[in-house]
């Protein structure tokens, strides 16, 4: 039987997928990389424009740790390791505190190593499994808006039977006409609601969520159409926990209309997983 070039092409594509797909890093790796880029970008901006900001961030982190530890037992949620992720630390380091960023450096320098450090001591991150979307339920809460920027908390409820952990930022997709669309989420100091224009990123912490307990992430976005085309509307968000493999659906009964801002096609800024709600009054 004679074969066409198309047959050969198809066979080669299939064989390459067979051989390479198993070693392609997954979405969690992509999230880690984007987090590093976002943190580097934020760190570079802060180094240039907000000298001393990391000190303030560390103080805020320590205060948040004390508060969270005091109330965590009651809520069934605890902060175990706490560090400022804006310095570019790798999440696989499992709670190690990265060195402080040099605030006088005008531009980002060497990249952080992408390999884990040889820490031998088991941490909560290794002892307790990461939360996955399959064992979480999620809902929107505390919706609010101001000056064309809207925001809300997302309550992540551990519906499983064992505790699990989350650390860092979730991946965010949106559902449009039944199709999942990857959103270009930022983790920036530019969020007018989340970050209160104070030039500091929300603190990232390793959060353990007991069965039946809640953790929170929050996001804000532009709701003002500033371009020639209509802003897209979405019926739900799909949230994948930072170290999880599956997403959990967050229904948006009134639809989310996400618009651009700051030069992006859609601008949506996200805050990391936290023990407490961001927008609750």
């Amino acid at each position, binding site marked *: *039987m004679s*074969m066409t070039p198309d*047959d*050969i*092409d198809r*066979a*080669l*594509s299939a*064989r*390459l*997928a*067979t*051989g*390479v*797909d*198993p*070693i392609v*890093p997954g979405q969690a*790796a*992509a999230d*880690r*990389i*984007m987090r*590093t*880029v*976002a943190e580097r*970008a934020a760190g570079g*901006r802060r180094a*240039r*424009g907000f000298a001393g900001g990391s000190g303030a961030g560390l103080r805020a982190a320590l205060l948040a740790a004390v508060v969270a530890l005091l109330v965590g037992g009651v809520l069934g949620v605890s902060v175990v390791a706490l560090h400022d992720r804006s310095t570019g630390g790798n999440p696989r380091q499992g709670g190690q505190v990265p060195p402080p960023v040099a605030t006088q450096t005008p531009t*980002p320098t060497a*990249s952080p*190593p*992408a*390999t*884990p*450090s*040889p820490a031998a001591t088991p941490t909560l991150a290794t002892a307790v499994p990461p939360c996955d979307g399959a064992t979480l339920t999620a809902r929107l809460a505390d*919706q609010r*808006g*101001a*000056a*064309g920027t*809207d925001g*809300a908390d997302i309550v992540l409820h551990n519906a499983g039977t064992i505790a699990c952990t989350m650390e860092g930022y979730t991946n965010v997709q949106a559902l449009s006409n039944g199709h999942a669309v*990857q959103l*270009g989420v*930022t983790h*920036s100091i530019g969020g*007018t609601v989340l970050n209160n224009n104070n030039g500091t990123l929300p603190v990232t912490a390793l959060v353990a969520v007991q069965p039946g307990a809640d953790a929170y992430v929050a996001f804000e976005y532009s*709701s*003002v159409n*500033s371009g020639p085309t209509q802003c897209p509307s979405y019926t739900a968000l799909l949230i994948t926990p930072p170290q999880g493999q599956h997403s959990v659906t967050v229904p948006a009964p*009134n639809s989310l*209309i996400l618009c651009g801002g*700051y*030069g*992006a*096609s859609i*601008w949506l800024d996200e805050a990391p997983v936290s023990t407490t709600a961001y927008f609750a009054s």
Partner: protein
Amino acid sequence: MWTTDTRQPAPPAAVPGGGDRGSDLSFEAELRPLIIPALRLAAAMRLDRQDAEDAVQEAALRAWRRQDNRREGTDLRPWFLAIVANQCRETRRSRWASVLRSADPPHPPVPGADPIAALDVTAALRRLPETIRLAVVLRYYLDLPFEEVASVSGCSLDAAKSRVRRGVQSLGAALRLHEALP
């Protein structure tokens, strides 16, 4: 939308010392959907999951630092994938990194994957010269048009087609593609 307030969000303030928040955020948004294709490219070039992630992370940071060098109107994908390809060439794992890797847990098996067939493919890829491997991977694994294969590879269109042709011949023989077809 939960508000009827129609005022515009505040425009990004220029950051003293260079670089503005707006361009950074825009760049991040543009870069994000390219990370998975970049990881696929790096995995096929390095043939190691951890190497691939390292290479793409370094390439992403490099791209962010060099974003001002990108000519206006240039498509980000070939520009960024070219940086990834260069990074894959340059990545040389240190002895310390290899020690660390030996302590890593093994990767879980992929359900439904045929480990023997996968080994055949990675061995065949390993035998290809780097430029040929890059062209084949871009064309047949990332499904890019020849124009983009040429752009990422930094060669002419004719050279890209020639490299792909040579790669197909080599892989076709190594993997006995003719026999595999019905």
